[in-house]
């Protein structure tokens, strides 16, 4: 994470952070009870950089994403303090119209399983360009179709004209995730957010999908915020790293430095708990215990 000072200026500046999070705290309120799920998180993400948010279940990774997009599950009383600016727009205070504009134009979201976010009754080619059908310009159906075919070819579909006519369930997990990436990158957003995008995939497919995300970013210069439970994926794909635990940032810094010389015992413990393919064979893994987590 590059430590840029928080600026109030919204003038176009290429070095200005695409995403700037300051003292973000989210509390979930349920019947007189309040629980902080994200606590005092601050970071900046600039153009072209990639930042991984890692942590175990309950660390607050998904709540962080929801909070910075200003999107919470229906019925959840989440109160967000602090700020999360995307291209200078504070998502917490922006009106619904402005927030939707930023979500549509500047952010591409890649979910864990695109099958859940795809409409099962629409052909993939049609819904791929759905986001283009709204907004100010309303392109013709034919040009939308052409755009969908191009986008599918760009993410490696061999026969996009045929494959665009398939329904989501007719695709494999890897193909669905490529549709997810095509949809997320269609508007060439400045910020790509991946929420465990390869967790459900086999390692060989995971590699192809992560390579594809890297290629798309190289083409467009998009910044990447990658939420993952897999430290090794973060290690290979991201410049910077944030380790979260119980809603708070435990440690943050350049990936290589953080993983080779962690300062916090929890980061150390997480690294040591992972079985490895290289180095001496271990018979026992170190496990984080309450004792060494000070």
């Amino acid at each position, binding site marked *: 994470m590059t430590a840029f000072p928080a600026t109030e200026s919204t003038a176009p500046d290429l070095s200005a952070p695409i995403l700037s999070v300051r003292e973000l705290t989210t509390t979930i309120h349920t019947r007189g009870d309040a629980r902080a799920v994200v606590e005092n998180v601050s970071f900046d993400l600039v153009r072209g950089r990639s930042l991984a948010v890692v942590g*175990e279940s309950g660390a607050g990774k998904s709540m962080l994403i929801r909070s910075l997009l200003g999107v919470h599950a229906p019925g959840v009383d989440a109160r967000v303090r602090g700020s999360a600016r995307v291209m200078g727009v504070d998502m917490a205070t922006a009106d619904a119209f402005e927030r939707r504009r930023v979500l549509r134009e500047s952010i591409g979201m890649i979910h864990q399983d695109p099958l859940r976010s795809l409409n099962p009754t629409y052909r993939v080619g049609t819904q791929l360009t759905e986001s283009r059908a709204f907004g100010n310009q309303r392109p013709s159906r034919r040009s939308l179709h052409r755009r969908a075919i191009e986008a599918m070819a760009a993410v490696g579909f061999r026969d996009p004209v045929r494959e665009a006519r398939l329904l989501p369930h007719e695709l494999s*997990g890897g193909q669905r995730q490529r549709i997810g990436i095509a949809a997320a990158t269609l508007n060439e957003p400045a910020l790509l957010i991946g929420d465990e995008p390869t967790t459900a995939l086999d390692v060989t497919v995971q590699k192809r999908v992560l390579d594809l995300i890297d290629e798309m970013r190289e083409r467009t210069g998009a910044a990447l915020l990658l939420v993952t439970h897999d430290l090794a994926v973060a290690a290979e794909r991201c410049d910077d790293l944030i380790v979260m635990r119980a809603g708070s940032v435990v440690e943050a810094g350049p990936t290589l430095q953080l993983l080779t010389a962690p300062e916090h015992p929890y980061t150390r413990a997480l*690294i040591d708990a*992972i079985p*490895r393919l290289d180095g001496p064979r271990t*018979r*026992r893994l170190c496990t984080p215990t309450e004792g060494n987590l000070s």
Partner: protein
Amino acid sequence: MTTAPALDVRDLTVGYGERTVLHGVSLAVPRGGCVGLVGESGSGKSTLVRTVIGLQRQRSGTVTVADDGPPNPVQMVFQDPISSLNPHRRVLDIVAEPDTIRGVGTRSDRREAASELLARVGLDPHRYGDAKPGKLSGGQAQRVAIARALMAKPSLLLCDEPVSSLDVSVQARVLNLFAELREETGLSMLFVTHDLAVVRMISDDVCVLNEGRIVERGPTEQVVTHPSHPYTRELLAAAPRLPRA
């Protein structure tokens, strides 16, 4: 004293309808040994597991389990621990179930034995014995499932992705438990997983399954450091790695 392997699978061919999923697979788990079976989705891992426990019929080939031991010589540990436990029953009764079914001892004998096993897998029986599965975390539930499997004193423990849905620190604890159990009880295991690094820690030998065929087998260390089949090399190359300190 018998030297027959705990599990002996020979020339196993299994299919669904037109499709053949396993093509003449052979593998053996020696007594007290642990064999890792590695493969990706669609490789036939689950079909092999289902065939070994008799949920799926083979077209040809044989599955032989050493049966000089208990009446149910194969016990399973599943990927999703919560859904493999009856949500309405208490932990001690769940663990005691294999003996309950066979009518071994009195209820208090069985609960006593179950308590010991719970302690053995690292759960305090006084704290968790009367809990229901809904109160357990994923790692705790997996321990209960392991204790239940051990209750039947199996000749073979068949583990189907037993740590894949667990957080890394919980996974480490459960893997350590498997390693301890192997050393202390001489348990024979077939450990099915997609993760070669997990296999490297837990098992002496590995079989790599690809499209229904075992494409490579051997001592885990050798396969991991000097893979000979292109598919194994692809698997190893695709696995993301942490930098070394």
